[in-house]
């Protein structure tokens, strides 16, 4: 009788401690980002899923919850659910837009969760504990530095820009500032909206308009694909002509690995930054070093030498 009661007490204690273990020890991290509607975002989605698998295998007590939302208000609701349904300990968020999501993220912070913001900052400072982002001005600067190594004073280039936004301005202004005084003529710049078709048409028009172009800054890998098609159509893809894109699309990186002379380099603006953010957030619970702070990723120049480490053949981007 005594033994039996002892066993049952033990059993009850064991169950209780197990339950306690599950709720107190599991670190729940919500990851919220926009539903992918373009290739870069699809790549981000893929990298987030990869990071989830890797981190959950590495730390059995870490549970990552990935949610993507089609618009800002859906993302705001998703954030509420992450707090009320999942009871998250930390949030990794790539906001759809800064303004409408500042308050929802602030509410998550009030629940006591650690906040990591990715890529797009919130409109109020001091909400996030960790900030992970690519470096837009650096992308423009690195592209310009490469241009200067290949061109001489008096050479001509054209620039294709993205969608008129802050991101595009930051990249473009830094590029122009870095090119200043190099003697390279920037014949004109037009918006190609980070889009292959627009890149093709704008480049066709540049080619008709300017008989002498030595290089093209396309700023983005999608635009660069259109530019290359236009150059080949006009038969002006030889004579040392080169195109510099940006972002790190797998096809572009494959081309760099294979020694493509027309697109010899790429400047990184990695969709995998979401994985970096997830790693850092988990580290906030696991590392013995301090983690909070701002992580601005480098706009690495991808060349034939280092391309292999940025090549993810299974990613959609």
């Amino acid at each position, binding site marked *: 009788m005594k033994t039996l009661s002892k066993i049952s007490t033990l059993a009850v204690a064991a169950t209780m401690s197990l339950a306690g273990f599950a709720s107190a020890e599991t670190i729940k991290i919500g990851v919220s980002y926009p539903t*992918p*509607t373009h*290739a870069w975002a*699809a790549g981000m*989605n893929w990298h987030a899923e990869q990071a989830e698998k890797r981190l959950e295998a590495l730390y059995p007590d870490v549970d990552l919850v990935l949610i993507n939302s089609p618009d800002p208000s859906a993302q705001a609701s998703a954030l509420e659910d992450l707090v009320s349904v999942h009871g998250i300990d930390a949030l990794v968020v790539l906001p759809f837009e800064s303004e409408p999501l500042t308050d929802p993220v602030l509410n998550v912070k009030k629940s006591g969760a650690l906040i990591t913001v990715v890529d797009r900052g919130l409109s109020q400072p001091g909400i996030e504990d960790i900030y992970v982002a690519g470096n837009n001005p650096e992308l423009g600067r690195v592209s310009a530095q490469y241009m200067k190594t290949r061109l001489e004073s008096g050479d001509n280039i054209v620039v294709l820009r993205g969608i008129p936004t802050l991101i595009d301005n930051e990249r473009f202004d830094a590029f122009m500032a870095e090119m200043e005084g190099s003697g390279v003529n920037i014949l004109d710049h*037009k918006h190609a909206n980070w889009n292959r*078709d627009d890149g093709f048409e*704008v480049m066709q028009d540049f*080619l008709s308009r300017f008989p002498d172009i030595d290089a093209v800054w396309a700023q983005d890998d999608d635009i660069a694909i259109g530019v290359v098609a236009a150059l080949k159509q006009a038969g002006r893809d030889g004579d040392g002509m080169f195109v510099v894109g940006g972002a790190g699309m797998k096809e572009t990186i494959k081309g760099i690995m294979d020694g493509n002379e027309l697109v010899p380099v790429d400047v990184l603006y990695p969709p995998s930054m979401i994985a970096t953010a997830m790693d850092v957030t988990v580290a906030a619970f696991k590392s013995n070093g301090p983690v909070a702070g701002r992580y601005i990723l480098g706009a690495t120049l991808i060349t034939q030498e280092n391309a292999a480490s940025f090549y993810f053949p299974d990613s*959609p981007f």
Partner: protein
Amino acid sequence: MTETAMTQTQKSRFQNFDFKTAGPAIALIILCIIGFLLNPAFLSEGNITNLLTRSAFIGIIAVGATFVITAGGIDLSVGSMAAVIAGVMIIVMNGAVETFGTGVTTVLIGCGCSVILGLGAGFINGFLTTKGKIEAFIVTLGTMGIFRSLVTYFADGGTLSLNYDIRGVYRPVYYDSFAGLPIPVWVFIVVAICGWLLLNRTAFGRYCTAIGSNESVAKYSAIRVDRIKTWTYVLQGLCVSLATIIYVPRLGSASSSTGVLWELEAIAAVIIGGTVLKGGYGRIGGTILGALILTTIGNILNFTDMISNYLNGTMQGLIIIVAVWLQRGDWGRKHKNN
């Protein structure tokens, strides 16, 4: 001859000149002169060829849209339809490589698939509009969203790319020329001629106009209104599939950003060309000019840095409004009443 008589003859000559018909042509000529003054390279052979080839996509789609609009309907789904057809074509061709190799057969399978999808999608739009008795605006707004999200889904949010080996076979469809004109321009010309004949020389064309001007009267005149209206959407679908067949070899890819706003460009081309938006009057020739005008505007804006890039939309909007005003304004008619 007295002086008054002379002014009168001049005036009547001015009145005889039909601005309604010539409006789009005048607008296009003015645009070309502006383009030439900005940069003589505008009229270079290469640029003209680019312009015509580029107009082919919107132009072919707009020929279909002319029938839909003339019959009093509207189709907002054409841009998304083009994107999803392009996406499925690429998937089918990539899949057919294993069985049929990288030859012409695979490309033909892709094209056949495009035509079937275009006809099917057009039929769905038409059937829901006529038999479903839902306004065309709502039906095609719905299918626009459906088609757009389907292509995003097929591409997994990214971009669908055509197998590089098929590109070699398919590429000439966009890039090669026949008798000095690129193949897309030939397709555009053939579609335009067929469209003109169909609208102006057949009972079908007259039925479209009749339905567009007054559906009830058309019904009492023993016209099978539902059937004719459905046919206009099927025709629109066919035009979209033809445009897609010449679009895919250009860059060999499709994504959710393919064909964005093509529906509005096609409708704008139709209206600039003189077709009445509420139906009952359609002009294929005008539609062709409308498509050329739209492409020329974008081309000219790329040829100059006088206008801030941010104002491109403003220039396009202004030119579209002026082009339509040229033919709608009561030019000279007021003088007649005096």
